[in-house]
């Protein structure tokens, strides 16, 4: 029980600096700081050579070119050895012709998994759940997604979140529910009564003073 308590003690939050690490990967020893200046998607999977994870790795590989266009790197992780990761990646390529182009952390000592709160004992005491951490170029955590062991991730949503975060950073706006690039964005709410009154005269599409949208 004590061990379980210790393993779940740290859960990083959105807006906090991403926990630093140095880890053995399929592309050599990498540090978090090696990714400084790029967006990074750090994601965990339960185990190599398992069906749902294999479909996810194929899907992540397929969106990799789109991520690269957006300045995003991918970094996988599971509590498996480098040899297992290499064997699995080679098997995926042999069977599906999809090459896995990004590194995968071999987190055998669970150092990174625990620092990022990737082990949820209610699901598994030894495997990581399906986590996605979106880390910005300043190495701040901007999004955290958790999926259970039985549910594969949605790549469209991951791309949509990247587009939304980059649009927010570039234009100082927010994005509404189900937003897609090209859709209207939400203008930040006014802070004063005067700004609220002015807002209504500015030609935005407003439901009321607190919900105004505009085209970029």
């Amino acid at each position, binding site marked *: 029980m004590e061990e379980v308590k210790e393993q779940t003690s740290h859960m990083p939050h959105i807006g906090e600096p991403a926990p630093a690490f140095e880890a053995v990967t399929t592309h050599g020893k990498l*540090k978090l700081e*090696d990714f400084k200046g*790029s967006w990074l998607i750090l994601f965990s999977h339960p185990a190599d050579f398992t069906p749902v994870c294999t479909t996810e790795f194929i899907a992540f590989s397929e969106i990799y070119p789109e991520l690269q266009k957006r300045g995003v*790197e991918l970094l996988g992780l599971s509590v498996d050895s480098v040899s297992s990761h290499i064997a699995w990646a080679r098997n995926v390529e042999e069977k599906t012709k999809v090459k896995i182009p990004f590194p995968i952390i071999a987190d055998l000592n669970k150092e990174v998994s625990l620092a990022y709160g990737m082990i949820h004992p209610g699901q598994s005491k030894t495997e990581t759940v399906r986590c996605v951490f979106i880390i910005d170029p300043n190495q701040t955590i901007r999004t955290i997604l958790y999926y259970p062991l039985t549910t594969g991730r949605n790549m469209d949503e991951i791309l949509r979140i990247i587009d939304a975060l980059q649009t927010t950073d570039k234009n100082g706006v927010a994005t509404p529910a189900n937003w897609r690039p090209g859709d209207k964005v939400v203008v930040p709410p006014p802070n004063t009564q005067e700004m609220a009154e002015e807002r209504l005269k500015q030609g935005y599409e407003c439901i009321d003073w607190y919900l105004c949208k505009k085209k970029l």
Partner: protein
Amino acid sequence: MACISPDGKPTESGSKMLRALKAGLGAPEEIAKETSLPLFRVRSGLRELAEAGLAKPKGDGYEISEQGAKLLK
């Protein structure tokens, strides 16, 4: 090691980085552009080359060491 094989010789990506260093490039960003390797791979690779004595830190980047230059000959 991604840039150094177990026999101590640089891998293909390690050799690319060493050649870039020999050509006078030193900043990881410049080397990433020259070699078309991802920046994170270059940063970690240069660290490995330095640990192996094939490169040495210089300012914000690296330069090739005598041992590294000999290896390219």
